[in-house]
């Protein structure tokens, strides 16, 4: 069954011309020497020719083009996405989130006491967490500073772009 399927797939690829030169000569040799391959090839080629020559397209109503043109009259072509999606902003957002994740990892690993032997217990009591530590920590402060700088950079990029745009559109 698998051999049959494999033979069909190889023959279809050969008919479509998507095989390498090496595979092509291999299949050609099989078709020329093996009766089973020859019959299957003839059969598939027949289907291929039927599809090539007999497949029909349906036509919509006569008024179709006019209907579309009437409909598009109500709309305007939207500006290209690249004009309003600034790649730098996307990169900025990406950097922001990566920094956040890295920051949390650094902080998390910073909290681990590596010298203490591990336990098998994974019990975790939320009420016992000292939340004040999270916001009075040097790592957290550095992390917040980086985010603030990134935020300012993004704002600067946005304002620069707007300024440039205004200069371009203003009359000389």
């Amino acid at each position, binding site marked *: 069954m698998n051999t049959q399927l494999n033979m069909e797939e190889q023959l279809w690829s050969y008919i479509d011309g998507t095989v390498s030169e090496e595979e092509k000569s291999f299949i050609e040799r099989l078709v020329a020497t093996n009766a089973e391959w020859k019959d299957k090839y003839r059969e*598939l080629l*027949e289907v291929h020719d*039927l599809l090539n020559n007999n497949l029909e397209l349906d036509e*919509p109503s006569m008024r*179709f083009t006019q209907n579309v*043109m009437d409909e*598009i009259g109500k709309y305007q072509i939207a500006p290209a996405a690249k004009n309003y999606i600034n790649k730098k902003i996307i990169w900025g957002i990406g950097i922001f989130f990566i920094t956040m994740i890295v920051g949390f990892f650094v902080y998390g690993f910073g909290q681990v006491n590596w010298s203490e032997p591990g336990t098998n217990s994974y019990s975790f009591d939320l009420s016992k967490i000292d939340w004040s530590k999270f916001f009075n920590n040097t790592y957290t402060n550095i992390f917040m500073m980086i985010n603030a700088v990134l935020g300012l950079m993004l704002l600067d990029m946005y304002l620069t772009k707007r300024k440039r745009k205004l200069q371009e559109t203003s009359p000389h």
Partner: protein
Amino acid sequence: MVAGPNDNEIISRVLRGETQLYAELVKRYQSFVFTIILRYTKSREDAEEISQDVFVKAYRSLADFRGDSKFSTWLYTIVNTTCITFLRKKKLDTQSLDNEKVFEVADSQDSGFRANQVEQKSKLRMVNEAIQLLSPDDAKLITLFYKGEQSLEEIGNIMGIDPNTAKVKLHRARTRLKEKMEKHFAAEVKDIMN
């Protein structure tokens, strides 16, 4: 081959304000788009409504067409997404896009479709009726490859799949079509093969 300005020239001119030229693109691709959609809906009214929606969407997003693929490939991508969205929204009388069992049921119900007419059927009718017995995805693949002038790579882009997957799917779709023809048009197939 299409006469007149090529697709990219038309698009540039439409973007420069010659909106009426868009009609040329509609005329060029309406039957391809309509046929592919008809593979899904089976209702001409719905197919026409979806086709219209596709051309309007394409028009509105025309500035986003970068020209790094053929316009037809880009358009068929819109056909693919619009069709699926529309069918989900309207819950038309079609089954899951991948549900081939439904079409097996359809096969068993259409015994009147074969027998007495088989002898008279032309190759043309045989192929076009057999293709309607396939699942929409299979029928669409075959239509894109044989009529939409799309390569396997382009079909992969349209359907959001790897070109190799598209290749295997196309092979299987043609094998299933061959089985349908053998089952429903046995006499015709025998004539052709001999």
